């Protein structure tokens, strides 16, 4: 079990490394180095960067030296929590991002939780009552969920909310609490706004999980041990929940790791449509304005958070599934 977790952790480290390289590439791609464009940006807005300051920045980021040195310097500064300056906002990147990163993760994780909470009972129901009206309904909604890209779903929902109820369904906070400091009232407000984005983000994942759960459970339900359990006089609920569901849960749980990156990905676009204060809209603006430090930092931070989330779900999987736990011992 320790070997398994160790392996996953090692892979996570590699993944973070790969993401950092990609983020560095994104920072490097626009023509010209960033100190030069930083100076140009500052000059455009009327402030002057002294020669000395510019030289300091150049040394700090190893500009003019080989690319791997530049990468190393950037990663080192990053690890120290110095993400550089945002050119567009003229403030440290850390300040610009602020709460947004946490809100992104809150939205993503609640979508993930919603996926499980919905998929598990619906999947079980669909398998146990195969070909029933409910099964067909779940199938139909599932297809819609898989076929409609989530940003379109957000758009349609926003449109319906706007035309039918004349209400703005977007956002994560009520207007009056938007800039307020954190308090119980604000947290409660966030909780009230979460279900809609979580549902939009989670629908595709839910549809997929229902499919997996249903197929697995149908396979298990046909096996003789189910008949045996039933003939022994166990109640129907116990027959199903105690044995086949537990077995069917396993392939279901192993896909969790891939659901989180998918949801985080989707949240970027959905946030734009729904106007959520996550890193999504910030990333888009940064990319369009070629504010590369900000963009690179967001990409890397999102990647790191996702990898951590995936690692946590892997460890949970070990806890659920004794087979993995016993594999190495």
């Amino acid at each position, binding site marked *: 079990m320790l070997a398994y977790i160790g392996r996953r952790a090692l*892979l*996570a480290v*590699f*993944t973070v490394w*790969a*993401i950092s390289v*990609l*983020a560095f590439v*994104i920072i490097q*791609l626009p*023509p010209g180095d960033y100190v030069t464009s930083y100076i140009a940006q500052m000059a455009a807005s009327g402030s002057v960067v002294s020669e000395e300051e510019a030289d300091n920045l150049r040394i700090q980021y190893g500009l003019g030296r080989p690319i791997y040195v530049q990468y190393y310097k950037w990663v080192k500064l990053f690890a120290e929590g110095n993400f550089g300056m945002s050119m567009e906002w003229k403030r440290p990147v850390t300040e610009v991002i602020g709460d947004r990163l946490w809100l992104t993760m809150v939205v993503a994780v609640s979508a993930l939780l919603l996926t499980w909470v919905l998929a598990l009972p619906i999947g079980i129901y669909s398998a146990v009552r*195969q*070909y029933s009206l409910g099964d*067909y309904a779940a*199938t*139909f909604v*599932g*297809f819609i969920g*898989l*076929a*409609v*890209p989530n*940003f*379109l779903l957000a*758009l*349609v929902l*926003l*449109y319906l909310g*706007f*035309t039918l109820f004349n209400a703005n369904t*977007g956002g994560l906070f009520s207007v009056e609490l938007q800039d307020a400091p954190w308090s119980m009232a604000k947290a409660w407000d966030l909780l009230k706004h979460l279900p809609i984005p979580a549902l939009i983000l989670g629908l595709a994942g839910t549809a997929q999980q229902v*499919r997996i759960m*249903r*197929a697995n459970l*149908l*396979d298990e339900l046909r096996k003789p041990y189910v008949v045996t359990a039933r003939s022994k006089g166990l109640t129907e609920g116990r027959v199903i929940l105690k044995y086949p569901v537990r077995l069917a849960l396993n392939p279901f749980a192993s896909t969790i*790791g*891939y659901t989180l*990156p998918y949801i*985080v*990905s*989707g949240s*970027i*676009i959905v946030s*734009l*449509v729904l106007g959520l204060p996550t890193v999504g809209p910030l*990333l*888009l603006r940064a*990319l*369009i304005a*070629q504010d590369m430090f900000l*963009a*690179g930092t*967001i*990409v890397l931070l*999102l*990647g790191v958070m*996702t*990898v951590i989330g*995936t690692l946590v779900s892997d460890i949970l999987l070990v806890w659920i599934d004794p087979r993995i736990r016993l594999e190495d011992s």
Partner: protein
Amino acid sequence: MAGPDLTLDPAGVPAHGPAAVAPVEDRRIFVASQWQLTWWRFRKHRVAVVSGMVVIGFYLVVLGADFLAYADPNASEAQRSLMPPQSIHWFDGWRLSPHVYAVKGVRDQQSFRRVYREDPSQKIPVRFFAQGFEYRWLGLIPTTRHLIGVDGGRDGTQTIFLLGTDVQGRDLWSRLMYGTRISLTIGLIGVTMSLFLGVVLGGLSGFYGGLADTVIQRIIEILRSIPTIPLWMGLAAALPRHWTILQVYFAITIIISLLAWTELARVVRGRFLTLREEDFVVSARLVGCSQMRTIFVHMVPSFMSHIIAATTLALPAMIISETALSFLGLGLRPPAISWGVLLQQAQNVQTVAISPWLMLPAVPVIIVVMAFNFLGDGLRDAADPYGR
């Protein structure tokens, strides 16, 4: 949707194997080739067959986009901004004579918006195979024929707008036709590239095993645990602004396919792993076939159908990716037209609330994605005709 269960659940597919067929047909089945068996099995999957036809229909639109369009997709006219869709009236009294009513635009004095009123007294006949703007059919034959059109359509004295117009007064139907062409070909080219990467890397991984397998599998796992959209956005935003439409088109295709090959590689690797130990592969090796020959003559044909199914299932993700990127303004940029570019106009909910037809380009996205999914499911079930 007849028997949606067939597509959902491979385990629930009723037995179609030789045993379930009438004895008269037995002989036919024993001598049939694998492709024939696959086709027979696929045919039984009605939803998949219908989806296949829908997909073919969409690709016919790709071929004939300029024939189906009746207005120049980039011709803008401020006087016709945001016109609602017009419906064709098929009968004039009892006589079949398709026509649309002329539309007059006036400025509403209160809201200062342009509002349009139909004028039933003024009928504009709709002609089939009408004259319109000039184009080259399939890029070769110059012609001015279009499926439908109105007299005076060429110089804009009389107009028809089946799906209304956008903010710049461009005809949405015609733009949709051209957008279909770009969106569906970008998916096709992208999937071809992913397929190439997937087959080469998945093949290496599955055939040689060992270190190559470990490395490639870890790379796949890493790629799958990265949130892709932020990465795409970063890469797409870095494309030089001065690039031509064609350059951006190919760059976007490459970006999308670079991150989408993992699923295909997984399928190919799985097939290689199962086939490697099969008797016919071992015998091929033993009689001295070269490695190339073993792979391409003996192994590949036996899982070709699996690859086709996996490819079909990979296409919708490609189409959605392009649509999403262009929707954000990071993918294809105007004057290029794709579904994503068209949907950009629907980004603002206030605009959509006043002109809901701007959301129409979402309809083909959804239909095509569904059709590809059903088709892929059907193909996957049929891919192994010797199974259950």
